[in-house]
């Protein structure tokens, strides 16, 4: 059973649908075609609803979810790491 869902095939993040422990191999299914999936090894504990990086993202790079930019990385993020307010920020609001 998948433990994460990805909105769109170009997305950089998978959303955890259950609490995930560091070191777990997480099956992330694509919502557009739920029989397709990608497996990512979790580099951190990820609470239900939080995001895991599906690729290495460098500081300053834009982050895609829903095939849209949801923010920019404020530091380097490794594949499998927790993606949240500590390492991405809005391009619209917030300093």
């Amino acid at each position, binding site marked *: 059973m998948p433990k994460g869902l990805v909105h769109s095939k170009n997305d950089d993040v998978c*959303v955890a*649908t259950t609490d995930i422990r560091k070191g777990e191999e997480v099956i992330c299914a694509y919502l557009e075609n*739920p029989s397709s999936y990608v497996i990512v090894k979790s580099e951190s504990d990820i609470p239900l*609803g939080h995001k895991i990086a599906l690729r290495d993202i460098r500081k300053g790079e834009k982050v895609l*979810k829903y095939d849209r930019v*949801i*923010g920019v990385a404020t530091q380097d993020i490794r594949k499998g790491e927790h993606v949240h307010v500590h390492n*991405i920020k809005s391009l*619209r*609001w917030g300093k």
Partner: protein
Amino acid sequence: MTSTIKAYVRENGAVGVRNHVLVLPLDDLSNTAATGVAKLIRGTTVIPHPYGRLQFGRDLDLLFHILSGTGANPNVAGVIVIGIEENWANKVADEIAKTGKPVEVFPIEGNGDLRTIEKASRKALEMVQEASEKQRTEVDISSVVMSIKCGESDTTSGLASNPAVGVVVDRMVDQGATVMFGETSELTGAEDIVADKMATPELREKFMKVFREYTEVIEREGVDLLGSQPTQGNIKGGLSTIEEKALGNIQKLGHRKVNCVLDYLDQLERGKGGTLCFVNTSSAAAEAVTLFAAKGSVVHLFTTGQGNVVGHPLIPVIKITANPKTAAQMSEHIDVDVSDLLDLKISLEEAGERVYKYMLRVLNGRLTRAEVLQHDEFSPIKLYISA
């Protein structure tokens, strides 16, 4: 296949799904007398609020729009208006009277609270008995005006509960019903997608004007909205930025064109058939639901991730979540749990069907959890300071 429901057809042909006798205080000073009536007379609903004195301009117009619209709501059988000054109370009562439903004004000046409560209670007694004889009759679902909003959202809202509501929205619009959505600030980052859903260039321009005005207020105040948008609850639930929140938010709009844009003071046109309408609202749950109800919504679908508990005194608010923890920890607030959609155990269509069927039961009379828990939030929007 078109659905039918059993509902109350009002004097002006509008369809209600509840049968309240409303005691409406015009201003903050009239709350005590209005509450006094509600304590004496079983079957009345009172909606205390903190406004109505020395407001002016667009702000006063908006308060009157909300008060008279709330009284005119098809879920209301009759209205008792109580105000400190008679002429102000009459302004609201006259608007409500245009629906043809019984409405009566009781001024406090020259009477005092006790005499006002007595006179108003005698009238309320008659109205409740009258209302108790009103029967539900079978009507087409196209006569339903509904609204949608999410609150304490998290990533599960964008993944599952909002798209499930989107299925219901499509179905309602296709059957000729009216659906309102709003949350102007929470479209930030997805406003272009909403603009692209507008049926005409004129609607697109009106929507973008409303959106820009809202954004300008935020910019003029020079505030950093991070922490309030997304909220702390949103962030706890995994939402990182306003863009991410907005993209999740719009999942509940479904796939139909938006053929109506209403700014604060605009009235919803009834009976156009198959209407999806953007309404300029704040994203605060109680304020938005209050404005939707004032514009004629008789039922509200409310998705929540981390667990928003909002209700409304007159319209049923159906709470839907896809977060399994929230469904378990706050079960008394949740009407429909679609968390199995996260595990892909059901399809999106099945989740939408579950919400739709539940909504039909509520339209036919089943009380929502917010109604049973007496979540009677009534929060008129205030635009600026009073005189």
